[in-house]
């Protein structure tokens, strides 16, 4: 069989090129690896190597020819033992066209919005008579980790100051005593490194809980969260999994300035392959952190420093696990829907109280999970109230609020009586001065103003 040499593609984008020079002539012997020609692309002059042994039987495109399309036959080699004269220069096959997939007919409709839709799941019923205990968010988070660590030896906690110091914000208090230094691990200050180490351990089937002292420092590690943890399952066609939780405080704390105060919810929520959770109260913190640890996917779990010390009722149950991807209607109302998550839920509830005094009945929805986003619950609420305000302590552009309002515009347009309104932090790096900081973050008053505006109340 003669060996056909075609005009090679020499870059991801090349379609044609100039055959600048032949370095062999008809009758020459070539070995695999010999340079046989030079080709000019729009970017560079490249050498073409023979990948077979043989004798050059025919050169079909003379040197100096411009615009030779990729795939065109340019020469033919006679294989060892083959007579050069017998070689037929006619191309034996056209350029290879990939075989299309069999089921081309049933092309699924392109889903541009999140393809992993949250299923209709409800919070587990808390049996009547269940004892409720008052816990801080901090304790609830610690209990969630401790309970899962007791059940599963593959779960371990790693981060800066998580063990001997008991946590920079004391969230991991007591874990070292109970589980020992092999499962509660103090790291050096190397976010990039230990996030990657955690992802690698998760590839091997362990279930790391990686604490970032705050999510501001996870910027050093975001490459592993996104490129390694979130994408590997897909890139491996499902062969490699990454059951890992990245957790820590997120968003503004109190007067720590711009570098320590950012909300990353919308950053992570943009990424397929991740789940993103941002709870408000203690019960949700516990139930959702347990769910995050149990989940076989990488989960970004965004806490809030200002909430750690707040106390809430938590059902005293052996295994209180909440569904990921389910929003919670915190307060029912009829006139306007206020959507929020994390610390801002508190502001939304305050706003609802005040609005009630003025005769406006607000429904408050806590998203709890940012990805997958439970837009159904929001839509159902908007169908009832016909108005929506989305409040979020974070910058406005490309925010979670932007996304909720875009989805409402697409999916609930006919039910809206006013534009969906975003209430975000002021679009500046967070300032230090007490008065400026207060003015920058979202307050109940901001939410009230927006709610009144969409209700066309003065």
């Amino acid at each position, binding site marked *: 069989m003669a060996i056909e040499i075609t005009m090679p593609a020499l*870059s991801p984008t090349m379609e044609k090129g100039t055959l600048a020079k032949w370095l062999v002539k008809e009758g020459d012997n070539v070995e695999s690896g010999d340079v046989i020609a030079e080709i000019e692309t729009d970017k560079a002059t490249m050498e073409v190597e023979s990948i077979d042994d043989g004798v050059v039987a025919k050169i079909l495109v003379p040197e100096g020819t411009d615009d030779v399309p990729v795939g065109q036959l340019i020469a033919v080699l006679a294989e060892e033992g083959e007579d050069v004269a017998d070689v037929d220069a006619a191309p034996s096959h056209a350029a290879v066209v*990939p*075989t299309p997939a069999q089921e081309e007919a049933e092309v699924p409709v392109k889903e541009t919005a999140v393809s992993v839709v949250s299923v209709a799941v409800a919070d587990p019923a808390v049996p009547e008579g269940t004892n409720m205990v008052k816990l801080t968010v901090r304790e609830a988070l610690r209990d969630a980790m401790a309970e899962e660590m007791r059940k599963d030896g593959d779960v371990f906690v790693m981060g800066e100051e998580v063990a001997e110091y008991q946590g920079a914000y004391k969230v991991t208090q007591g874990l070292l005593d109970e589980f020992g230094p092999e499962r509660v691990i103090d790291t050096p200050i*190397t976010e990039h490194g230990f996030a990657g180490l955690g992802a690698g351990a998760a590839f091997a089937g362990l279930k790391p809980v990686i604490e970032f002292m705050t999510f501001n420092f996870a910027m050093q590690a975001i490459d592993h969260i996104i490129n390694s943890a979130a994408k590997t399952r897909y890139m491996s066609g499902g062969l490699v999994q990454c059951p890992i939780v990245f957790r820590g405080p997120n968003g503004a704390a109190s007067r720590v300035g711009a570098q320590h105060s950012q909300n990353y919810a919308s950053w992570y929520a943009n990424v397929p392959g991740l789940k993103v959770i941002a709870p408000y109260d203690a019960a949700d913190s516990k139930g959702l952190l347990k769910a995050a640890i149990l989940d076989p996917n990488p989960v970004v779990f965004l806490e809030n420093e200002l909430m750690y010390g707040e106390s809430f009722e938590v059902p005293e149950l052996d295994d209180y696990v909440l569904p990921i991807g389910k929003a919670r209607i915190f307060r029912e109302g009829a006139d306007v829907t206020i959507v929020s998550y994390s610390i801002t839920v508190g502001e939304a509830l305050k706003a609802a109280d005040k609005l009630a005094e003025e005769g406006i009945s607000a429904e408050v929805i806590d998203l709890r999970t940012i990805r997958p986003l439970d837009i159904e619950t929001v839509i159902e609420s908007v169908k009832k109230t016909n108005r929506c305000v989305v409040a979020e302590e974070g910058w406005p552009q490309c925010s979670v609020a932007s996304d909720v309002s875009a989805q409402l515009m697409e999916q609930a347009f006919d039910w809206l009586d006013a534009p969906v309104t975003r209430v975000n932090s002021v679009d500046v790096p967070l300032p230090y001065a007490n008065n400026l900081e207060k003015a920058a973050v979202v307050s109940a008053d901001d939410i009230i103003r927006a709610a009144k505006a969409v209700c066309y109340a003065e």
Partner: protein
Amino acid sequence: MTTKKSTKKTTAPARRRTKQPAQYNASNDELVEFYEQMLLIRRFEEKAGQMYGMGLIGGFCHLYIGQEAVVVGIQTALKDGDSVITGYREHGHMIAAGSDPKAVMAELTGRSGGCSRGKGGSMHMFDPERGFYGGHGIVGAQVSLGTGLAFAAKYRKTDNVGVAYFGDGAANQGQVYESFNMARIWNLPVIYIIENNQYAMGTSVNRSSSEIELHRRGESFRIPGKQVDGMNVLEVRAAMDEAVKHCRDGNGPFILEMKTYRYRGHSMSDPAKYRSKEEVQKMRAEHDAIDQIKERILDAKILDEAGLKEIDKKVKAVVAEAATFAQECPEPALSELYTDVLA
């Protein structure tokens, strides 16, 4: 910026390089096996290059031609349960780990029969059943990830080791040193294989590195390192045996710097203007890993030319079969677009 190439070379002697480096005492069968494996990788890569030229393979495609002795020497020293991870120049690593060349080639062509079902491509291949964890496109990422795989081996109290391969260019990433530090303080069974092929795209080690003796990069972390002739599979294997023993015995991480060379451009679209043809030709002529082992086999009369030819034929057939499979296999079903995002 100007570089002080000449002074660097003279002031940085290869301190740990012994005069008479140990050679692995291979049996006749092993010598033939090494030859066959290296040849398979080379022929596979040549075929991949050709198929790229035919437009059958898209995107970036980084060939391993020239470096075959490294992966064959390293992989043959491992046992079940050991983990391996590397960057985007990983077709050879997949094959050496025992993956089916058909699945590797079909991944290159983006077909349903590819090892990642066509969703990973040239730079993202995985075979966790054989301990191979990718195939990563971010330079240096595999070093932290591989340290994590070794962490898991230790956490589970096995005597398995983790191998993290990376390039001379990757050796300048910060996370490499974060990983070295953690591996040392936690005594992790990880072997760092620096495949020093002397270039990171167009930047030579001399231009990019303050310490070009890369095996010394672990010194301030108290990690032992060794420089190895990466063109000699028997030296690679001997050094790896030592590193593996060190790790399995619970002595923590080890660094092996493999002095090697890639014959082709960085990727298919690299005209390689940063080095001379003579430099490449000299390496091929004087240090080629496959030629070296071939000579050894002939000298020791383990096989004659005809015997070697038989192996060549066998290898060619495997590669041809892979190439055919990779072209005939259908593209992934469109419904695959939405699968494997989440578990």
